[in-house]
């Protein structure tokens, strides 16, 4: 069979100023949620709502992904003496439990306040 030549895209195809698609916007939000589970010293402090272009998105995505890798490899910020490094999964599970208990507490507070007004 004859070899098939595969054309390359033109240089003009590249546009890192292209505005982010809904897919990339979701990707940024997901990575931000992952970032917020990192220790504070590993977070980027980048405000993702200010990200408008693919190039900016790639910069943020790259930083967070690298930091997630580093955290898993235990190469992040120096550990506090004697403190065990918590696994990412455990932190995520704790975050879910914390959110649940915050919701329950808020509901209880609401109910209590309602009873007081009566």
């Amino acid at each position: 069979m004859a070899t098939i030549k595969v054309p390359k895209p033109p240089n003009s195809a590249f546009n890192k100023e292209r505005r982010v698609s809904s897919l990339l916007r979701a990707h940024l939000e997901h990575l931000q949620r992952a970032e917020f589970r990192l220790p504070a010293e590993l977070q980027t402090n980048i405000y993702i709502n200010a990200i408008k272009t693919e190039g900016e998105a790639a910069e943020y995505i790259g930083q967070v992904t690298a930091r997630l890798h580093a955290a898993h490899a235990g190469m992040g910020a120096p550990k506090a003496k004697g403190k065990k490094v918590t696994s990412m999964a455990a932190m995520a599970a704790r975050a879910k439990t914390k959110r649940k208990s915050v919701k329950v507490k808020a509901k209880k507070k609401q109910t209590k306040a309602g009873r007081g007004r009566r």
Partner: protein
Amino acid sequence: MPPGLDQLKHIVVLMMENRSFDHMLGDLAKTNPKIDGIAPALSNPDTAGNVVKAQPLAQFQGQLDPDPDHHFPGVDLQIFGGDTSPGRVANMQGFIKSYFNQQRDVKHSQKIMYYFPQEKLPVLTTLAKEFAVFNRWFASIPGPTICNRAFAHYGTSFGKVGMDLFYINEPFKSVYNRLIDANPKRTAKLYYFDVPSSTMEIVNLLQHQPELFGTYEQFLSDCKKGQLPDYSFVEPNYTDHDGDDGALIASDQHPDHHVQAGELFIATIYNAIKGNPDLWKSTALLVTYDEHGGIYDHVVPPACTPDGFVASPNDTGTGMEFKFDRLGVRVPAILISPWIPAGIVVDRVFEHASIPATATSFFIGDYEQRSPREKVADIFVERTDKPVDPGRNLLSRDVMRDDCPEFDLG
């Protein structure tokens, strides 16, 4: 035991972005009537009352801007043509209406009906002609990327029809976790393009490092060294960004990224596997797309086994609940192996749950803890611990082909 299955050691899946079957492969129907592609009568009404036919006028870039709507309500309009009545019947007549909603431009909205003539996509169409192309591979749900990719990783989207992130303590393991937790242990890797592109599979990124993740460069190296895991999932580049050696063009083919960049990426993955003779004879490569991207396709998605979850009317955005009992729009899917005869066209119904179903059944065997959808999903590689049905086995040649396509990347 058919020798192709006997020698099979690796399954590789490459999932691209947001293009429908008719848009990418529909033109093949004119040279192969077995392929259910474009026919002269296919059309959609536009908002000015015109009947607009599908036309071979798709461009690589700059045409589908804005990005066509592929979220649940938009896809519902595309499939049902705007009919929201009980007992409605899908007619695939709402694509132009849906695209019109985004820019209110009648002329522009008609471009959603454009498809690629086959000579513009030499890689994808050659692979479709030379290996096994699926006439009936559908997105798993009529919605966007994240929930469809979830079906490829977990066999379900856990009741999600949008772009929500999944929490970690869901009832079913991803196919990667199943494989590495199996006894005997199997191997799996998700290769994303590079760090600035990253993976869409964030949940696993949070959990398993570095066992489950690698980059595209590592994929190429692993192919060369014969170190591919049992199961690999490859993601394209999702962004235009600067790399160490210059500009890196997005290769996912998501509008409005350049389609030729994706062609090049697909060819590179193919060449990487084929370039190692031991790997080539022992690997099956599936190239598919996560969803149709809001772009026209004519085949009505079929009903399917529900997966036990229900999305609320609020979550769907249509005012109707969704019981995950209907598939999404058709997408291109091609299975590649030197043990597959040229010109195979597969008419059985597949969807993205077929991916974990296939990898699980082939590398582990029976596995109970997975979604009802995945348990009944058809598989594209037959398991070898049971008698093989020759009518189903796609890796059917007795002798490996020596005439498989070669791609020159220049």
